[in-house]
């Protein structure tokens, strides 16, 4: 087994509170992993540490050739990780001063240095894929939550990152918009894009993930293929959690 992404001994503290207490995780190329667990157990923090939106205190993150030791990560290390990942936010976090198309183009032009025309053509392809071909010129304020989140996903898709990170992508959505966003994520998952997704949608996790990771108290308690984890969980904490949500 070769890891495309390898996380070793990741620790994150907020003051006296240890939110991540030594996380080890290996993602194989094309693997789709869903992280589940009670609120406040560090699931989102784990995702945010992988691209240093939160700065981990200890541990090593390796993506392909880039290995970053959290304890002495330079600004260049952080940028290198960020340019290998793409992040989908719970609250979409679209750039309010840019149209849907510009939101998708931004990473290509400003970060990758693509010429405008090429980035625009790529953005239009993505707009079509996310079902918003006719909304390219709309500003986020004029779009529904579901549309905004699809643009958020489109912005992440444009980067063609090694690792896509989804941080509870449907939690802020009105129920009527959840389906369209899940459908889009399902389509991306079908393309064998390596992804890590924090979600409360158990049925969805079971359906798209190759592996389910159950976290509690800043640690990985148990992990395995969906049928194993949902069907015959070994740990009492996992079983208790699944009973509560199930």
């Amino acid at each position, binding site marked *: 087994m070769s890891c495309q992404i390898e996380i070793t001994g990741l620790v994150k503290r907020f003051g006296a509170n240890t939110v991540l207490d030594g996380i080890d995780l290996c993602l194989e190329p094309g693997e789709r992993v869903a992280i589940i667990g009670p609120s406040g157990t560090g699931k989102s923090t784990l995702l945010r540490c992988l691209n240093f939106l939160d700065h981990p205190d200890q541990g090593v993150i390796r993506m392909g050739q880039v290995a970053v030791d959290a304890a002495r990560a330079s600004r260049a290390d952080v940028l290198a990780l960020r340019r290998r990942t793409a992040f989908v936010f719970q609250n979409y976090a*679209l750039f309010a001063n840019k149209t849907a198309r510009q939101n998708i183009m931004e990473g290509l032009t400003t970060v990758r240095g693509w010429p405008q025309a090429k980035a625009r053509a790529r953005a239009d392809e993505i707009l079509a894929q996310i079902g918003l071909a006719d909304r390219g010129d709309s500003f986020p304020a*004029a779009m529904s939550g579901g549309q905004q989140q699809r643009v958020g996903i489109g912005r992440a898709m444009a980067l063609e990152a090694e690792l896509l990170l989804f941080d509870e992508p449907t939690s802020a959505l009105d129920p009527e918009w959840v389906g369209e966003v899940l459908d889009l994520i399902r389509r991306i998952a079908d393309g064998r894009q390596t992804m890590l997704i924090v979600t409360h949608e158990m049925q969805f996790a079971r359906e798209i993930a190759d592996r389910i990771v159950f976290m509690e108290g800043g640690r990985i308690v148990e992990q395995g293929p969906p049928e194993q984890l949902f069907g015959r969980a070994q740990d009492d904490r996992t079983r208790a959690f699944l009973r509560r949500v199930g």
Partner: protein
Amino acid sequence: MRPLDTAYMWDLVPVIGSYVPLTLFMAVLAMIAALALAAALAIVRVLRVPVLDSLVAVFISFFRGTPLLVQLFLFYFGLPQVVPAMTGIDGVTAAIIGLTLHFSAYMAESIRGAILGVDRSQWEAAQSIGMTQGQLLRRIILPQAARTAAPTLMNYFIDMIKSTSLAFTLGVTEMMGAAQKEAAGSFLYLEAFLVVALFYWVIVEVLSVGQRRLETRLGKAVAR
């Protein structure tokens, strides 16, 4: 009570009017410099740049905490006594520098507030797609902050135009100085100062109309 000497007032219009360009020159130059300085000060504060942050805090506190007139006198009369390079400074330059520093302190605070008003998640989104701090400020945060801060900054510009009249105390003959000179010759103080007041009023009113138009346009641009 004597009647207003309106004929004299009409005669003064072209005299005072000829100094409008100097007033606008000082105000525009000081505004541009103050905007650039204020943006830099605001960024230092928002990013909490070590050491610089404290220095900027003191700078802002001083220039907001002391009267503009005192600051102008410090620059024009005080500093040249200890800084040889400033000995030959002329009143116009001193006024522009003084106005720049004074107003940049106020404007830095509004720009800082406007930057902090941009939703934190947009910073994170920009970081997540690999932008550097400079890129995300320039392309995402500052354009939105500028929109929020624009009305306040326009008000400071209007205030700045009126404050150029203090250059008169540094021996600069601008609108106010010209009015003073005319009045000293004719003893018609009311007429002279009334004319100069009307000049300021008209300039400010014209700008206010422009300001309202600008705000409407900016408002439209954000919405859809």
